[in-house]
């Protein structure tokens, strides 16, 4: 039996020049889900935590701990906390979207295009997430020390210093530093690809494996995909943590490389 694996999403309708795909519809549904979850957690939340509140406070504590370690102070951590936690919280819900039962019965058109598709299986969304985290980091570093941040990538400082000191050895090392700085720019671009592909690949892998297993034979549709479902649920959860976590680590590297950081 052939399995239909499509890496590109199906487009449902147009709003002006914007093509609305089925994963975008699922993204909106995820937003609604997050809204409902927030209302549910807010209900009865207080100094004595309810059971759901405890669960979410564990997440908040984990991220605050990591951010304090990266940025160095609680005040600074509180400033950047919303960006990373929003990304985490969105991915937490978006990655598990496929677990909602009976979503496959919503189809449109004659060909039966599914109305919902797990949001992170469209490559645009992981790329948007990775760009949000990384661009935020660079804007933050640039606003702290503009010249210092640019100087970490276009390293003309050592060359000028060597020219002033008239030292040929230092000049050679300065040129090496300059080209290493250019390589860092390529490294920054590679970070976008690596972060987004990691998320995209994990979610797609889970869905494809379940699709292949359940389409092998008639009797493998029912109980056999369960362990794979469990595995993909676990890896989706871990990936939701890993993307903002790596973003934090990159932010820590970039912020600590700034000269004379005043935080």
């Amino acid at each position, binding site marked *: 039996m052939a399995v239909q*694996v*499509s*890496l590109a999403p199906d487009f449902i309708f147009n709003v002006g020049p914007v093509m609305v795909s089925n994963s975008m519809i699922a993204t909106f549904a995820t937003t609604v889900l997050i809204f409902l979850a927030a209302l549910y957690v807010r209900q009865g939340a207080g100094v004595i935590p309810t059971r759901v509140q405890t669960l979410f406070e564990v997440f908040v504590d*984990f991220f605050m701990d990591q951010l304090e370690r990266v940025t160095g102070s609680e005040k600074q951590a509180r400033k950047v906390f919303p960006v990373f936690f929003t990304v985490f919280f969105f991915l937490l819900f978006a990655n598990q979207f496929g677990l909602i039962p009976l979503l496959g019965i919503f189809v449109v058109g004659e060909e039966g295009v599914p109305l919902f598709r797990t949001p992170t299986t469209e490559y645009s969304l992981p790329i948007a997430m990775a760009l949000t985290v990384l661009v935020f980091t660079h804007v933050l570093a640039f606003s702290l020390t503009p010249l210092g941040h640019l100087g970490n990538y276009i390293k003309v400082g050592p060359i000028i210093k060597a020219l002033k000191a008239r030292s040929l050895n230092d000049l050679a090392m300065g040129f090496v530093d300059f080209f290493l700085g250019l390589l860092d720019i390529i490294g920054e671009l590679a970070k976008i690809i*690596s972060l987004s*592909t*990691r998320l*995209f*690949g*994990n979610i*797609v*892998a889970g869905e*494809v494996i379940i699709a292949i297993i359940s389409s092998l034979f008639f009797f493998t549709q029912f109980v056999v995909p369960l362990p794979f479902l469990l595995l993909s649920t676990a*890896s989706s959860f*871990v*990936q939701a*943590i*890993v993307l903002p*976590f*790596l973003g934090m680590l990159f932010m820590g590297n970039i912020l600590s490389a700034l000269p004379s950081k005043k935080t």
Partner: protein
Amino acid sequence: MEADVAKMVTSAAVMSVGAFTSATGEAWIAKTALDGMARNPEVADKLFTNMIVAMALDESTAIYCLVIALIILFVV
């Protein structure tokens, strides 16, 4: 060799190499983490979180291979 057969063989080769290397790395991560936990059970919780994150990072190389195999099979 026909193009379809070449695609299948290439993607199978990509996946087997990717899965083998990443599995070896993950086993090594788990081994060292378990060693650390057995030697020092107080830090077991901290080690476990870091182990999971490290494993997810390691797994991503296999995931890159999977994406490449999927691209070879279905897109190119």
